[in-house]
């Protein structure tokens, strides 16, 4: 502790309960108290902090903005939480080569804000983009609505400077792709803080598109809405975004922040195409036809930016609006092949029935990335258990049709015990080899991703008011 204070200064080492308790949670419902929280200011300090923490035998839990939804930043085994919030400089932008060099604490949206005037943007746009950090995005390989056309974080990360378990600093990848050797930048992205700490990154920027068109289609049945998604893909349109909301979500939106969605509709589909004007016009026309053919009751196209914002308003406010239906919700992040969307949505509805829970679906339909939100009231005895079981059933249904446990939120602490549904012992063993090649002592973020019990410390589900017996 003395040493940590020497490295980063008194103000940036937190040990008292009334300080560290704030870092026991992230955006998920899991909590575990850190022992120490350190906020280094630069790569040298990060390296020294890691050395000091390792000398004392503490596990290290990296943390960005703490907006993750799978408990990735929750210090499951106690230890030192290293917050990268102070490494927040945008170091340079190279428009000619369309790259930006930045520190991990830079906020996602700040990147686009910083380059928008020059006609560029940073493509991955998770819903939390106003708060989440680039470091967190790299750790989780974050997506977002517009990753359908542009890809997820890994497709936009060229190189990362990382600090390893022994405090050494090394670059993975570089300023250009195909750096000879194994694609360790590709391996590092999405490793959820278990391999090391990113202290600097080079990411791609994209040229802003000439034109954006947005369309909202209203459906009387979920089946025809999901069929429209399948048909749009099959018609050769690659939308920039293709988002869906079901009836329950529509109800929440219209109660919370009304966006003019008809309350009796079963589903609304929000589609956005981007590109040169000739492309967007044609794609929009085709999408319009496809939706009508699939049985859309009504199709609205935004005529200007204001109308476009209005169409998006409901989608963007959807998660927040769920609070109008129930005090708590548990967001799932299953992903299925797009061809399996219709049957999976039917399965989700059956699960809701079976477990007697209410589910609001709002999701990235174009990617097959579902976000069933299970609504509940944590104060009702047994509700949380039922919700967790229903969530597990949904993920099983996703895996059963060739899908995955998580499309963008990560495994973290939340789903590590489900990993065996997807991966064999040998598959996981191969991942462990990579883990140990980087971090032989499992110093970084222990207890995450891999299906094993935590050896020390305690993890609990928030809030603390819930009765005993819910500790895991």
């Amino acid at each position: 502790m003395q040493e940590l204070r020497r490295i980063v200064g008194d103000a940036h080492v937190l040990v008292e309960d009334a300080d560290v308790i704030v870092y026991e949670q992230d955006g998920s419902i899991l909590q575990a108290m850190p022992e120490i929280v350190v906020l280094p200011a630069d790569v040298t300090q990060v390296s020294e902090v890691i050395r000091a923490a390792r000398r004392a035998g503490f596990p290290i839990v990296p943390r960005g903005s703490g907006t993750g939804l799978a408990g990735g930043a929750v210090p499951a085994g106690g230890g030192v939480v290293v917050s990268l919030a102070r490494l927040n400089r945008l170091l340079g932008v190279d428009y000619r080569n369309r790259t930006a060099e930045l520190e991990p604490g830079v906020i996602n949206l700040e990147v686009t804000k910083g380059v928008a005037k020059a006609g560029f943007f940073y493509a991955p746009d998770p819903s939390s983009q106003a708060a989440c950090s680039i470091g967190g995005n790299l750790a989780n390989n974050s997506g977002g609505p517009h990753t359908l056309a542009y890809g997820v974080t890994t497709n936009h990360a060229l190189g990362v400077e990382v600090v390893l378990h022994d405090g050494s600093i090394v670059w993975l990848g570089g300023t250009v792709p195909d750096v000879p050797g194994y694609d360790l930048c590709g391996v590092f992205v999405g490793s959820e803080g278990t391999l090391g700490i990113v202290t600097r990154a080079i990411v791609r920027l994209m040229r802003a598109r000439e034109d954006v068109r947005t369309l909202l289609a209203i459906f009387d049945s979920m089946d025809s809405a999901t069929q429209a998604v399948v048909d749009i893909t099959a018609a050769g349109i690659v939308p920039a975004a293709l988002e869906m909301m079901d009836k329950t979500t529509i109800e929440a939106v219209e109660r919370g922040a009304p966006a003019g969605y008809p309350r009796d509709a079963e589903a609304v589909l929000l589609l956005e195409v981007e590109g040169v004007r000739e492309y967007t016009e044609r794609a929009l026309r085709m999408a319009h036809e496809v939706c009508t053919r699939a049985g859309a009751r009504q199709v609205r196209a935004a005529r200007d930016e204001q109308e476009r914002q209005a169409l998006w308003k409901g989608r963007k406010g959807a998660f927040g609006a769920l609070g109008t239906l129930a005090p708590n919700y548990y967001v799932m992040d299953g992903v299925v092949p797009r061809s399996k969307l219709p049957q999976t949505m039917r399965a989700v509805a059956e699960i809701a029935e079976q477990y007697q829970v209410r589910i609001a679906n709002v999701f990235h339909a174009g990617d097959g990335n579902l976000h069933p939100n299970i609504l509940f009231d944590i104060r009702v005895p047994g509700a949380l258990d039922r919700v967790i079981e229903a969530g597990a059933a949904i993920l099983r249904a996703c895996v059963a049709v060739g899908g995955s446990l998580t499309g963008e939120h990560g495994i973290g602490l939340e789903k590590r015990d489900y990993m065996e549904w997807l991966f064999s012992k040998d598959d996981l063993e191969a991942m462990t080899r990579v883990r140990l090649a980087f971090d032989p002592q499992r110093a970084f973020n222990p207890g995450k991703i891999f299906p094993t019990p935590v050896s020390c410390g305690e993890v609990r589900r928030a809030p603390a008011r819930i009765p005993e017996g819910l500790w895991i």
Partner: protein
Amino acid sequence: METSVSSMHLPLQRTEPHGPVVPGLQIPELDQCVHCGLCLTQCPTYRVTRLETESPRGRIHLVRAAGEGRISTGERFAEHLNLCLMCRACETACPSGVKYGRIAEAAREVIGPPGSALSRAVARLAFTQLFPRLGRMRVLLRLLRFYQRSGLRAVARVLPRRLREMEALLPPVPARFFTPEAEVLPAIGTRRARVGLLNGCIMPLLFGDINAATVRVLRRNGCEVVIPKGQGCCGALNVHNGETTAAKAMAKRNIDAFLAAGVDAVIVNAAGCGATMKEYDHLLRGDPEYTEKAARFSALCRDASEFLADLGLTGPLGPVDMTVTYQDPCHLAHGQKVRAQPRQLLAAIPGLTLIEMEASDRCCGSAGIYNVTHPEMSRTLLDEKMTSIGRTGAEAVVAPNPGCMLQLRYGAQRAKAGTAVYHLMDLLDQAYQAAEDDAGRARA
């Protein structure tokens, strides 16, 4: 497969719930927070410190934990809650509609006013003895005026640095305070509404011209203006600093005074006061006598810009050749969600150009008495603000709230920028005046 984390690692002993629960902190607003973190980057103190303890989500979690007895409400807890500016930018950012202000106010009720023992005592004295009794305030300001003009000010140079800085924050007290010529002032032209005006505590003393300007602008827009004698200070500073006993009494006094005046709206030209008055119903919840009255009163309250924009400006506006930028007062933009209306009114003034600054809705660091209790953080935010203002190249900044105006004037002085600071009502009044002058010249 995965074995022990590290054989050397010995967790520190942390005990789970150790203290008594604090019922005052177990408030329903807490349950709405899903700790998504979207508020972090909108919080001025988080932006500066990068510490989650100084973020809305962090503070909410602290209140929750303290309420459950997991941490004490001691010094550390108080420090984190007190560093909050109460700007409520987090409420704007929150997708779940968490009313952070209420959580923070509840916490401050438990921990009491901020600062050292001495400054807490001074603050408590001010909240209970000064603000509720405007006569005393008037006397105090007269003394201050005397001090500023007597040459005694030179003495301030020998004060310790901290006190010297506080002294520098003191605005010059104008030669005249605002005293309405009558309790009811008639509309000019066709009467379109009968409105009450909050005279306020500081406004008539330090910004008497603005109250006068507000009255003129309202009257020119066909408003009969009532300035009920029975009114007093709105109690905002009390509420923000966790003093609710005097605050409730002050609220009741205003409610009685204005409801008795039979007005269509209660006009407020100080954003902080407006935000508080619009929430009197919350302050007086559970007071059977006032529940209904408070709700009725709160529904009548309007910021001057909000009211005028809805009413629609009438009468000729003359040119005010000026390039300005607009600072959204926190309690107007975040507290009352009034953003478009002031801009709409500015756009209506001929000759005036509005250049938006970056993050116009970020707090300037004034925040009631914050610039006195937390001078360092306050100045950091102010310097940032002055930089944003400087970048616009505007010659003046418009900020329809007295606290912001004082702070920005101090900022302009610090930055040696020469940026003028206006209230929106100043400029509207100037525009009407300019039209009148033109008409006068034309007649001549």
